């Protein structure tokens, strides 16, 4: 007869399926995202000055502090080391306008973490992308300040402070694609330079941190839906190349829509999610009251993620089709 002695240091962990395996620890992936954001941060400082670093610092600081405070008051393990709060803070800072008030930035960061993430139970439980929740709050709370765009440092003569999308929508003025590619235009801190976003985004895709499907689906969706309206009427509707490079599309594509927590987990679901964002976005941009709608489009589709996951669930082995 063998006696089994219980080893108190050995803990058997139970979790219900599905068991998602990844060679990435959350912590490592999160810091990879921070690295990927460096080009955007550089472009922000380059075009709008060193004050923007302050915005980023304040946003990150308040995001981390909020997370720590919530965890402390709820008597939970303080998890700020996983870097997710840092990323939320950084992402929020990169989607506010240049020279934005530091007080508002701090408020946005508190809302992003408090109402966007912790109220649902913390990382992994939030339905919506926290940084976008913070941005949406700021948009509704301070609609004037958050649409006041500072002219970039190296602005070409004649480029106004209006964003390319607003210029096109309200005054039918186009913007040169090369300016939009390098980021020499009005817009939020990190979103103006298409090339900086692309460097960071492609780095994430090739490093395996984010899946290629959502960005690809969004870009394809924009070409299809945006292109359709452009073919119907090329004078009232902008061309798809402009739509791709303008506003927060690329930034949202690579850094917002690909958020692990608030995007679908199934391959088919990712395609639906990405195409859906683009469809909603095209509708907002072309027919809505606002010039830009990446934020609302992603938040809207975030709400569908549980449903998408449920309906695109792979068939269980052995189950009748």
């Amino acid at each position, binding site marked *: 007869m063998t006696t089994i002695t219980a080893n108190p240091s050995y803990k058997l962990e139970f979790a219900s399926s599905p068991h998602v395996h990844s060679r990435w620890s959350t912590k490592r992936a999160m810091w990879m995202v921070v690295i990927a954001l460096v080009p955007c941060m550089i472009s922000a400082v380059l075009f709008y000055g060193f004050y923007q670093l302050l915005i980023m610092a304040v946003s990150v600081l308040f995001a981390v502090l909020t997370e720590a405070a919530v965890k402390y008051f709820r008597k939970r393990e303080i998890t700020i080391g996983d870097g997710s709060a840092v990323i939320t803070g950084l992402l929020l800072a990169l989607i506010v306008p240049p020279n934005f*008030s530091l*007080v*508002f930035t701090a*408020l946005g960061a508190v809302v992003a973490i408090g*109402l966007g993430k912790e*109220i649902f139970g913390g990382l992994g439980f939030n339905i919506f992308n926290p940084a976008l929740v913070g941005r949406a*709050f700021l948009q*509704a*709370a*301070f*609609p004037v*300040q958050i649409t006041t765009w500072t002219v970039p440092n190296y602005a070409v003569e004649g480029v106004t402070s209006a964003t390319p999308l607003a210029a096109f929508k309200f005054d039918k003025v186009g913007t040169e694609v090369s300016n939009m590619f390098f980021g020499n235009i009005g817009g939020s801190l990190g979103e103006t330079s298409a090339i900086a976003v692309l460097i960071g985004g492609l780095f994430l895709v090739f490093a395996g941190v984010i899946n290629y499907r959502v960005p690809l689906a969004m870009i394809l969706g924009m070409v299809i839906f945006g292109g359709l309206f452009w073919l119907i009427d090329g004078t009232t509707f902008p061309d798809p190349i402009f739509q791709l490079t303008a506003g927060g599309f690329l930034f949202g594509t690579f850094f917002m829509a690909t958020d692990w927590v608030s995007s679908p987990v199934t391959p088919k679901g990712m395609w639906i999610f990405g195409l859906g964002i683009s469809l909603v976005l095209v509708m907002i941009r072309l027919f809505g009251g606002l010039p830009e709608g990446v934020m609302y489009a992603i938040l809207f589709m975030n709400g569908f993620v549980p449903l998408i996951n449920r309906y695109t669930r792979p068939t269980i082995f052995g189950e009748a089709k």
Partner: protein
Amino acid sequence: MANKVTAAKEFIKGLWDQNPVFKQVLGMCPVLAVTVSAENGIAMALATTFVLVFSSFVVSIIKNWIPSQVRIAAYILIIATFVTIVDLVMKAQFPALSKALGPFIPLIIVNCLILGRQEAFASKNSVGRAVLDALGMGTGFLIALFLLGATRELFGTGMILGFQIMPEVYEPWLIMILPAGAFLTLGLMMGFFNSYSEKKKAEERNTIVEKYRQAKRQAETKPLEAN
């Protein structure tokens, strides 16, 4: 069943333990829509309380004559009469307020708080208790609407009841006087109040358990006396 509850308790329960907004989550339409300012909240709550008290009064008087098949229709008729009275009086005497509350005064008719109290309480209790219950519920509604309205007005405009509270540098958060602000404020308030009462409940439970254990210990140490 109600005889064991004192009359005072019929009134007090509506203030907190069974607060119509925070605990029963009734009448959400006016709660969310008109609470852009403390003043609107108070006016709405007073109008609702008036309708509630008089409807409860009438319903509890005639409760035995109403055939149960048409009781809801009868309640609605009675409620609608009092709502129309409020609407007409407001339009005639307080036109500015009536404009601010707009279509929400006529909508009191379908406020489930009022119909709910008729069905759940006034139709089964004496006149005095029905009126006390209605007053308590109305006051609870007033407390909730004032809290919501004042909070939203404070953050959304920097003022409460038109008096500047926040310093000059304060930039109002417009979201608070938009519909989204109503949902945020109500949700957060409910969350805080619920966590508070959960805590209280847990404490009460612990003291009861503690008392029981003490009694048991005493009983065990003196088993013979118990017999």
